[in-house]
């Protein structure tokens, strides 16, 4: 668990990275009303999708940093040699990544939802869906980040690898809010995202750890 503390400390020393991601999220979400017009009804139906897409892009922005700094200064190699299980290390790093990028997005989402005139209950569902969904983004992203470690053009490549895998989370995350607003009930959607979270928490660190071994050999 020291790895979480360490990554958090590193993030605290370089606050600009965290803030960049958050502001990217806010700006992308705020651009949509400017581009499609300020009509309230349309904004309300668009809101969940817009917030989710922006969250996907924002969490992808910072994926490159998950391993690359440690890779460049050789720390990652030392971690690989340490007796600690590599999957656990990856899990810790993904968790730290989520704390640094995911949690601020979740906290900011209700405020942005107000911009889109979402009703109070929908705001709650949106926040809950993001809370469950953003860790999945960090976990799946860890695989992509580990695979593209040290490659030229890795940043673009990671989006090609990771975005298709993000799609299920996007569909059900945005679907939860829409289901709530149309009165169908959001339980099923949230349960599915919870299932994604459990499955990816088990398998993604393992896949990312083997990807790290491939990248570093």
């Amino acid at each position, binding site marked *: 668990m020291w790895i979480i503390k360490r990554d958090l400390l590193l993030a605290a020393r370089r606050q600009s990275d965290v803030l960049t991601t958050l502001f990217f999220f806010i700006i992308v979400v705020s651009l949509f009303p400017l581009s499609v017009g300020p009509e309230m009804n349309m904004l309300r139906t668009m809101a969940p999708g817009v917030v989710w897409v922006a969250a996907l892009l924002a969490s992808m922005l910072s994926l490159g940093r998950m391993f690359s700094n440690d890779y460049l200064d050789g720390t990652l190699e030392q971690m690989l040699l340490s007796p600690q299980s590599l999957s656990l290390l990856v899990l810790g790093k993904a968790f730290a990544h989520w704390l640094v990028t995911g949690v601020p997005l979740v906290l900011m989402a209700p405020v942005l939802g107000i911009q889109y005139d979402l009703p109070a209950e929908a705001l709650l569902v949106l926040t809950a869906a993001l809370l469950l969904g953003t860790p999945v983004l960090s976990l799946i992203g860890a695989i992509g980040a580990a695979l593209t470690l040290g490659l030229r053009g890795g940043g673009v490549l990671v989006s090609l690898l990771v975005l*298709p*895998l993000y799609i299920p989370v996007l569909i059900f995350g945005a679907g939860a809010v829409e289901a709530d607003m149309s009165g169908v009930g959001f339980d099923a959607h949230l349960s599915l995202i919870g299932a994604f979270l459990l499955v990816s928490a088990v398998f993604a660190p393992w896949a990312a750890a*083997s990807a790290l071994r491939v990248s570093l050999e």
Partner: protein
Amino acid sequence: MAINWFKYSSPASFYSLAGKMIPLFVFVTVILTAAGLYVGFFVAPTDFQQGEAYRIIFIHVPAAWMSMFLYVVMAFWAGIGLAFNTRLSSMFASAIAPTGAMFTFIALWTGALWGKPMWGTWWVWDARLTSELILFFLYIGFMSLQAAIDDPRRADKAGAIIALVGVVNVPIIYFSVQWWNTLHQGASVSVNQAPAMASTMLTGMLIMVFASWMYSIAVILKRTRVIILERESHTAWVAELHKKGAI
């Protein structure tokens, strides 16, 4: 007599075996394609609902099946290559990817051409269409990841991981018409019930499925041979072939 099953797992012996097999598969492909297209366009009756436009299934369905099947095969061989460190299986996996991507593209494209007269629209954000599109992105991702890595062994292993991760999408595509009841029609052929179409239509379609299958094998073998040559260019047996003028 003991047969050495592992003999052909060496690139050198597989190379010559593949060379002998390719003409055979090409021959079968040509015969089956000709037969399948003949049955499809001249023998099969006009559909009472969809008219002549339904005939695109003779291309659309085989392509869609092959796109999913080839992804599973690719992930399987990539996984074998990752687990047992066998070079040939990884080469095979990377040889499958372009053909799989091509069939995915054909399935999407013919689907759009079929959708226009039937549904009145080229594209719908329906579960099956979307998941097939994701499959296309997965193939592209696999290929571009391999292309971005210079060291072939590392490329193989990295590709294997992403191929195995992406395999979760295949059952989603397969069951999408049952899970989500949307515009795309349900499966017309299934194992445990009588097919919901005229038998000549089914025959034509199955012949076309086998034709695309044989075509894939021929093309993939050919591409594997090229990859073997590329990667083994430093070895003595390739130099020998070159001297003989066989390449």
